[in-house]
């Protein structure tokens, strides 16, 4: 560079201290940390609501909560887990890891990055305080279907505005991710070489930008139907409640991939690392991810088989849904092929990744079952569906997040986590997860509907089992919290590369990752999936 004038450096690029470090952060690592802690807090609050649900369902009849409150718990549990826990956790990881993996100095828009984060606590506050307003929180289910959502009290309006704010947050976060990947990759880090995690977050971010505005439109129509006299979802004025479902699920189906693709990205790093083999079929992984980015817009009405759509539409959405299982299947086979004849070891991240593959596949298969329109008409809105999506969301998204946290914990904190506690956390979660959710398949097949506080007597035993499982599962998450807190403070110092098989860029820099990494872009020689062959230059401080 001809002249490196001082104006090119931010005036104070050293580490700020105290509270203002977090409030005014422009550092991707700090902001990533904020995201992760926030999402864990939300995970616990959503988890408490889940336990309230499970406590009520332990026995038939009403024991603890009135049906109105029960419905508020289900609704807010879903909303908080989706928008408060899973999505921000992935954004937080992307914040932490993307710049390190592709050799960028930070996220492309560091200030906006902080705004994306700080919009989340106000939105969460709106959601949580809505329990206290007259009429309580929204109780229409996380899908906020009209005409339920066009009735209800003020809690629904708070939910609507919270969704607007979270939408703005995730759109800005996604713009940041896309621009960082497209514009800030270090020389040599080409698109068809970059890590799968980068690919996954890239496609995810694109999906978010495409569908969060549609959700904003949907809830805006609910708002105007509620307060400004429109009839979008009311036949009296020429509208239709089914219209809500179309608009919502045009958002909603891509949303499930928004929670799944980053998980695929994470697993595509953890499996090769601990199998000590390069990822099998990197290129096909990229194409599978990209094709999901297109196909996921063409399947939304598989959530609406029970609404009386024309048979041709049912057939179309049924086959399109089965088609989208193909790229997902490609990935599962690629991961298995990666492990094949690998020199595998089973540290905690690997355990969670393998657990992910097994359980996500079960969730995927129950999904394919549900995609058969004739079957779905029987199983729609039953506990079978609850079982299905918890296999992909808890054992899928959440397990992959645990894998990621354990995997990158040394790089983030400079300390090793406690392996024994990590393994305990895994096995504990694995067992109790299945105890909780596997019986729900049977409940659904036997006809127990979801979103009810009371049920017929013959469902009692399986509900008891599920409730016991849920409480144990929930308790087990405290092992994780304890492990994190103690290890951050007292953990063994971690080496630069604690995992023998890890080969992406973040393992080439010191541990813990320096506050500012790659302030000068390094020159890289890269193999598939972001594996670093040679590295020249690149400064940190």
């Amino acid at each position, binding site marked *: *560079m001809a002249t*490196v004038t001082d104006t090119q450096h*931010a005036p*104070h*690029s050293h580490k700020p201290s105290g509270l203002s470090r977090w*409030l*005014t*952060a*422009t550092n991707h690592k700090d902001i990533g940390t904020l995201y992760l802690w926030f999402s864990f807090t939300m995970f616990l609050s959503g988890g408490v609501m889940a336990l309230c649900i499970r406590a009520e369902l332990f026995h038939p009849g009403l024991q603890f909560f009135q049906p109105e409150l029960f419905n508020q718990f289900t609704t807010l549990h879903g909303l908080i887990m989706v928008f408060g826990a899973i999505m921000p956790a992935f954004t937080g990881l992307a914040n932490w890891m993307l710049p390190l993996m592709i050799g960028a100095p*930070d996220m*492309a828009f*560091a*200030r*906006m990055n*902080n*705004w994306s*984060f*700080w*919009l989340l606590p*106000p*939105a969460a*506050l*709106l959601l949580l305080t809505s329990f206290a307003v007259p009429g309580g929180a929204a109780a229409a289910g996380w899908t906020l279907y009209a005409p339920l959502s066009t009735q209800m*009290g003020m809690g629904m*309006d*708070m939910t609507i*505005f919270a969704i607007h*704010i979270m939408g703005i947050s995730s*759109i800005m976060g996604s*713009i940041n991710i896309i621009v960082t990947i*497209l*514009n*800030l990759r270090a020389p040599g880090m080409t698109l068809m070489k970059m890590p799968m995690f980068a690919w996954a977050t890239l496609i995810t971010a694109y999906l978010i*930008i*495409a*569908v*969060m*505005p*549609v959700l*904003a*439109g949907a809830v805006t*129509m609910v708002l*105007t139907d509620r307060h400004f006299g*429109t*009839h*979008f979802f*009311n*036949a*009296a*004025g*020429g*509208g*239709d409640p089914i*219209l809500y479902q*179309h*608009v919502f699920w*045009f958002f909603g189906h891509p949303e499930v991939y928004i929670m799944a693709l980053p998980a695929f990205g994470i697993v595509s790093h953890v499996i090769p690392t601990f199998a000590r083999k390069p990822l099998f079929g990197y290129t096909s992984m990229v194409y599978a991810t990209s094709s999901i980015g297109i196909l996921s817009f063409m399947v939304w009405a598989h959530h609406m088989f029970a609404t009386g759509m024309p048979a041709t539409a049912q057939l179309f959405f049924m086959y399109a849904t089965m088609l989208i299982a193909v790229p997902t299947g490609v990935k599962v086979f690629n991961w298995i092929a990666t492990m094949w004849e690998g020199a595998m070891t089973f540290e905690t991240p690997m355990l969670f990744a393998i657990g992910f593959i097994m359980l996500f596949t079960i969730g995927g298969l129950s999904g394919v079952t549900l995609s058969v329109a004739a079957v779905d008409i029987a199983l729609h809105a039953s506990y079978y569906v609850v079982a299905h999506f918890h296999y992909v969301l808890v054992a899928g998204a959440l397990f992959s997040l645990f894998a990621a946290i354990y995997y990158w914990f040394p790089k983030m904190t400079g300390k090793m986590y406690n392996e024994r506690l990590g393994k305990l956390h895994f096995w504990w979660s694995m067992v109790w997860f299945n105890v909780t959710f596997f019986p729900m398949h049977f409940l659904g097949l036997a006809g127990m509907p979801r979103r009810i506080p009371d049920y017929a007597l013959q469902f009692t035993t399986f509900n008891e089992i599920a409730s016991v499982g849920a409480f144990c599962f929930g308790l087990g998450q405290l092992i994780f919290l304890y492990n994190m807190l103690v290890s951050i403070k007292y953990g063994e110092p971690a080496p630069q590369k604690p995992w023998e098989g890890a080969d992406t860029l973040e393992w080439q820099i010191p541990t813990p990752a320096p506050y500012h990494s790659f*302030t*000068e872009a390094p020159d890289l020689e890269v193999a598939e999936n972001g594996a670093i062959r040679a590295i020249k*230059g690149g400064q940190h401080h």
Partner: protein
Amino acid sequence: MMESSEQTHYFVPSPSRWPLVGAAALFCLGLGAALTVNGLGSGKVLLALGFTILIWMLFGWFGDVIRESLNGVYHGKEDMSFRWGMGWFIFSEVMFFAAFFGALFYVRTISVPELGDITHKLLYPDFSAAWPLATGPGITQHYEAVAAWGLPAINTLLLLTSGATVTLAHWGLIRGQRRQLVLGLLLTVLLGASFLTLQFIEYHHALTELNLTLSAGAYGMTFYMLTGFHGLHVLLGTIILFVVLLRVLRGHFDEHNHFAFEAAAWYWHFVDVVWLLLFVFVYWL
């Protein structure tokens, strides 16, 4: 020596309080709006507070960015980031409008025809489907639709012309012809303002003489929601262009360095295209 495309250093701003201020603003706006729509007076106070904080933040934040730009901290890479960022932002706006266009197509091709067909005769015996509707199946309000070839056609002309004037201004900017730049921008802002004035007159006409309101069923709601959100975007676009004009007058841009101008122009073209779709599907067909 390296070209700017091989620039190895990227500007990372120092800590800033504006994001936090912006979050506070949105919290006030969200809570304020929720209270207001439920008729609670305190909501208005919060809304006002939220807007004030938001405007304060916008001045502060954009002020910082402009200062950084003038100090020369942005180079090719930063500029490229801004361009990508604006492009994806506009894409998100496109999808927001897509939701409302989707609703429009749905009521026109599915729900209204179905409500008028034989299966709904028991429920709504007197309703016959048509577009534009003169009334809803279950509401008593009668209204008239807005004619395409009056003010809306003039507005189409205004916006199309403004698309041309902003391009003229752009040419003026890259060729260093300041007069053309200033004049083109000024004309664009004036055309935007005239569009808004005409739309205001049109709304007044629709509300008072055609009896067309937001609650007038499928036609009224899609009409007002689509043209209303579009109008808000024209308002925003006009304000942005006006700010850019002020910055031009202060000599902020040169033929290489004028991202803000281009972003405003892209936004303006986007608003323009949405209007064309509105004209065809809301007013005309």
